[in-house]
Structures are given as C-alpha cells and as structure tokens.
C-alpha cells in the first residue's frame, strides 16, 4: 500500500481539478441547451451526467482509500464536501428523471452549479490547502 499511496494521492489531486473543469463544462452545456435553446435533456447529455456521477464516485472512492491508508485532508470538512459532491448529481438525476413537466434541464443546471461549487470548496480544503 505504501508504494501505491503517492500514486493514489496524485490521482485524487488530478481528478479533483478535472472534476471541477468537467462540472463547469457540463454546467455551461446545460445552460446552452436548457436556457438558450429551450430544449430538453438529450440522450448524450444524460449519458454525460451518468459518466460524471461515476467519475465523482471514483474520486470519492480514492479519497476513502487514502483516508483508510492514514492520509488526512488539510481540513476535516473536506470529508463533508466529498459527501456533498457524491450526493449532488444523484439528487438532481432523481428530479429530472421523475419530472412530469418537461423540459427539465433546470435540474442539471442546479446540479452542476452545486457540484462545481462543492468541488471548488473541496479543493480548497484538500491536501494542498
């Protein structure tokens, strides 16, 4: 485990930055589709959302492994932000997929705005401080 730890830590670091950029990109796409073009969620967008959910889950899993291996974040509240990031997209996926009124892209505008904010805060409280 000791030889894997630096690699996992580096991955956790890189994926967090990538997550922020991807979250912001998805937010912009959601705004374009939902607010500018007034369209509903497309198949490819929803696939992207599911992919992003998996990405966040992987990032959280890496964090958990690092924690179990004795690593600690710069601030403990980093764990709370990790929990928030993990839960944010499933909540809004639920709202969108069960929405009776269409279009329902608004859910993902909310979801990715929140996700990006949580990612930013978790980066600020993570290992690099």
């Amino acid at each position, binding site marked *: 485990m000791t030889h894997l730890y630096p690699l996992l830590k580096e991955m956790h670091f890189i994926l967090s930055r990538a997550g922020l950029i991807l979250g912001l990109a998805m937010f912009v796409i959601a705004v374009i589709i939902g607010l500018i073009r007034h369209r509903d969620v497309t198949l490819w967008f929803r696939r992207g959302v599911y992919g992003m959910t998996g990405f966040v889950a992987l990032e959280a899993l890496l964090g958990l492994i690092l924690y179990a291996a004795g690593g600690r974040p710069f601030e*403990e*509240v980093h*764990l*709370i*932000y990790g*929990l*928030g990031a993990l*839960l*944010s997209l499933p*909540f*809004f996926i*639920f*709202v*969108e997929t069960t*929405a009776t*009124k269409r*279009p*329902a892209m*608004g*859910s993902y505008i*909310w979801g990715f705005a*929140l996700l990006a904010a949580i990612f930013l805060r978790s980066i600020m409280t993570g290992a690099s401080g």
Partner: protein
Amino acid sequence: MKAVNMLSLPLIFSVVTAAISAAFAFFVLRRWVGARRAGKSRPHLLAWGIGLILYFLGSFSQIILSLQWSAFFFALWYWSGALAVAPWLGQGTIYLLVRRGSIARNIQMALLLICIMTLPWALFLTPLNGAAWEPGIDMVRITNDVMQRGGVRGFVPVMNVWGTIALVGGAIYSSMLFRRKQILRSRMIGNWLIAAGGLMPALGGALIRLELTWIKYPAEMVGIILIFVGFLVATSAPEEDSRPRRTPRTA
C-alpha cells in the same frame, strides 16, 4: 425544591414551544399521509412537516441544554434551530407558489443536500467549548463563547434569510392576492397569521444583536402558535372553493 429551582423562563417557553411544534408536526404529517393514501402528493405538507420536526428538535434541545451540558444537543440545537427550520418551512410555501417546471423540487434537493452536509459538520466536526455553559444559562448569549465563528455558521445567514423570505413573503403575497380578489377570507387571515408567526423567530434572532437575547424564547413560542393558528384558519376554507378560480393554494 431542586426541580423548582431549575425552572426558568427560557425552560418554560422551550417546553411549550416543543409541545406545540410536536403536535403541529404530527397534525401536518398526518394530513400528508392521508393525502398520499388518497393518491395526492402534497409535497408542501411534507416540507412543512420536516420544518416542524426541526422546530421541535431545536426547542427540545433547548430544554436539555437548560438542564445539562451536551455537545451533541448544542450542535443539534444550533443546526436545527438556526440553520434548517426556516428554509424547510419556506420550502412548503415555495411548493405552493412556484408551480413552473421542477423549480420547487430542485430547490428542495439543494436544501436537502445542504442539510445532509451541515448536520455531520455541526455534530462531529465543529469544536465546542462546554466550559461557557452553566445550568439555566441563556444559550443564545453564550453561543459565541461555545462555538467559534466560521465553518458551519457561515450557512446560517443565507439559509435564514432565504427561508424567512420564502415563508413570510409567500404568506404575505398569498394573503394580498386573496384580499385583492375578495375571496377566501379565512385563507387571507390565515396567511397573515402565518406571516406574523414566521417573522417572530426572525425578529427574535435580529434582536440578539441588540443584546436582547431573552426575547428569542417567547418569540419562538409565539411564532409557532401564530403559524399553527394561521394554518388551522387557512385550511378551514373548503379546498374546492379555490380551485376553479385559479388562486394560489395555501396551507
């Protein structure tokens, strides 16, 4: 004799507030369950029910804290009373007034997410200084000594302002609409009472800054009584009366 010595006005106000909010929560949630069984969703009743359970938790924690120190109940008191009650009560009003798309449901999810994040933050990750506590002390007065600024406290102004605007503003908006259209007088009166009741805890919180901390306890008690009475008055109007006229449904 010892028990009598422990009685203080904040404790008495807290007991009354806890009893009324528990009864009110039961009443509202029973209506929600009844509506669900009848095939209606009524999410505003669920949101109010959650808000009222939090109101109860806040005042119940106050009772515990006026008798003995508990870091768990202090964190629960702060989280439920200062952070979560107002936006959940406001969420019920948002469900009634904002009917476009899934806006209300999205706001609820954001609220749920913030509550899930802030609860363990307040309970387990916030350092508390229990040395500032003594039996019967006014909890509001020692908050700054027990809990340092920043952290989870950063959410409080945003959540409270948002919740109060939603609850009070929504109730005022509804009652003004009913007044203008000259219909459903009971709902108009009920909404005025809900608005007044929603303002009471906010007023109590605002007066803390003027060192009038003791007002918080009676303000919470009067607030829940007014909201309960307002709810009963507003729901005394037959529901079918409001439907064909396209007026905002309240309570």
